[in-house]
C-alpha cells in the first residue's frame, strides 16, 4: 500500500507548437530542470485549446492544467492567442466561481527562446499544485484507480 508517500501531482501543459513547445525543447537542451510530473500536450496554437480539453484533463486525473502559448502579438497565426486569452480568462473565472481552486489553472506566454522561463514556470506551478494537493473538486471518481 502507498502510505505516506510524497504527493506527486499530475500536471498537464498544453503547449503551442510554435513557441512554448519549442521553449520546452530549449529547456531540455539547456539542461534546465523541471519536474517530470508535467505532461506536455502539443497543440497547433493556444487557440486550439477548447475549454473541454481543460475539463477533460481534470476528469482524467490532472491536478493542475497550464496552457502556454506565444506572447500576445507573436502568434504564428497572427491572432490565435488573443482569442485564447479571452477564452481562458472566462473559463478560469468560471471554475473559480464554481469553487474550484483557481490556482490549479494558469496561462503563461512562453516564447521559443524562453527555455529558462518555461522551466521556472513549471517548477513554480508544480510547487503550487503540490501545495494544493490532490484535485478533489473536479475529479471523476470513475477514473480513479482503486
Amino acid at each position, binding site marked *: 500500500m502507498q502510505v505516506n508517500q510524497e504527493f506527486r501531482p499530475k500536471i498537464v501543459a498544453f503547449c503551442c507548437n510554435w513557441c512554448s513547445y519549442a521553449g520546452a525543447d530549449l529547456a531540455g537542451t539547456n539542461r534546465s530542470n523541471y519536474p517530470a510530473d508535467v505532461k506536455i500536450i502539443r497543440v497547433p496554437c493556444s487557440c486550439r485549446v477548447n475549454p473541454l480539453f481543460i475539463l477533460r484533463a481534470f476528469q*482524467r*486525473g490532472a491536478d493542475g492544467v497550464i496552457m502556454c502559448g506565444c506572447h500576445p502579438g507573436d502568434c504564428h497565426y497572427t491572432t490565435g492567442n488573443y482569442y485564447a486569452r479571452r477564452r481562458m480568462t472566462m473559463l478560469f473565472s468560471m471554475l473559480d466561481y464554481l469553487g474550484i481552486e483557481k490556482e490549479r489553472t494558469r496561462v503563461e506566454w512562453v516564447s521559443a527562446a524562453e527555455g529558462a522561463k518555461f522551466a521556472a514556470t513549471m517548477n513554480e506551478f508544480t510547487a503550487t499544485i503540490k501545495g494544493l494537493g490532490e484535485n478533489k473538486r473536479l475529479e471523476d471518481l*470513475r*477514473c480513479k*484507480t482503486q
Partner: protein
Amino acid sequence: MKKVSRSSLDACFAAIAASQKLYLPVADGEKKRGAKYAPWFEGAVYSTAVNTVRSAKDFFFPQVEKMTRFKMDGKQIEVEDIRKENEDFVIFGVRACDAASFAILDSVYLSDPVDSFYQNRREHGLIMTMACGKPTETCFCSVFGIDAAEPAGDISCWMTEDTVYMQANTEKGEALLASLPMLEDAADDAAEETKAAIRQVLDKLPLKDLSTDAFGGDKLMKLFDSDKWNSLSEACLACGTCTFVCPTCQCYDIRDYDTGHGIERFRCWDSCMYSDFTLCAHGNTRTTQMQRFRQRFMHKLVYYPSNNNGTFGCVGCGRCLKSCPISMNIVKVMKTLGEGNE
C-alpha cells in the same frame, strides 16, 4: 391498524433508520419549492408536499446504474460481475400514484427474463405509502383506477392533524410495524374519516373526468395515424423532462465508459424524446420530433395496455403537467385525441 402521534413520528423514523436505510420526502431546492426523497437524518422534516419532483422509481430503477466491468488486455476481455446484494431499505411517504407505478415497472422488469438489478432492489425495498391529504389540481390518478385515499404498498399510512395511522398490507410491513414500540393499536376503521375527507376532495379534482375511452391496444392504428399529433408536438422542445420525472417511464440506454483502467458498462435512463433514441448506423426510424413525441404517448396509452391486459402506462401523478417547459402533457394529449374518438 396502528397509530402514532405526529409528535412521535420522528422517533418512529429514528427507530426504523436504526436498523436500515430510511428515505422520506423533504423540502428541496431554491426557496424550498420542491421536494425530494432523502435519507433520513436527525432533524429531517417530513415534507407533506403532494409529490416529489422526481418519482420514487429512482429507488428501484436509478438514473445511472453500473452493470459490468470489463478488463481489456490485448485481445483478451475479462468480464467482472459487480452486482452486489442490496441492503434493506424503507421508503416513507410514497403517494398512491407512485405506489401504482411499481406494478407497471414490475410488469416490464420482472417479466421473463427478469432484470436482476431491478429485482434485487425491489426485494430489499419496503414501501410505506401515504394517503394524499391535499391532492392538487394536476392529480388525476383516479382516472386510472387508483384510489389516493387507499394507497397500496407494504404499509399504508393516513395522516390527520395530530395522528398518523399505519396499516400493514404485507408480511414484510407487518414485521416492520411490530418492531416499532412507539406504535399504539388503533381500531381498524380509525382512518375511515380521513379517507372520506380525501375522497371528498378527490371528487372535486378538475381532471377527475378525463376519459380513457379513446385509448387502449385496440385503437392502435387509428391513434397512430391521427393528424392531431402534428399540432400537439409542434412546440415540443425534445427535452427529456417528462420522461425523467415520470414514475412509469422505463426506457434505458446501455453505455460504455472508458475509465482509463477498464471499461465500465452502465445503464442510464433514456428518453424516446431524444433524437438518438432510435439512431442506427443505417439511419433513424423516427426522424421527426412528431414521431418521437407520438411514441411516448402511444407507449403509455396504447402499446403498454396492448401488452398488459389494458392497464395504462400512466398513473396520473401530474408531474409532467408541472414540469414540461412548454406545458404540453399527457392530459392535453388525451383530451385532444379523445375528442370525437370515444
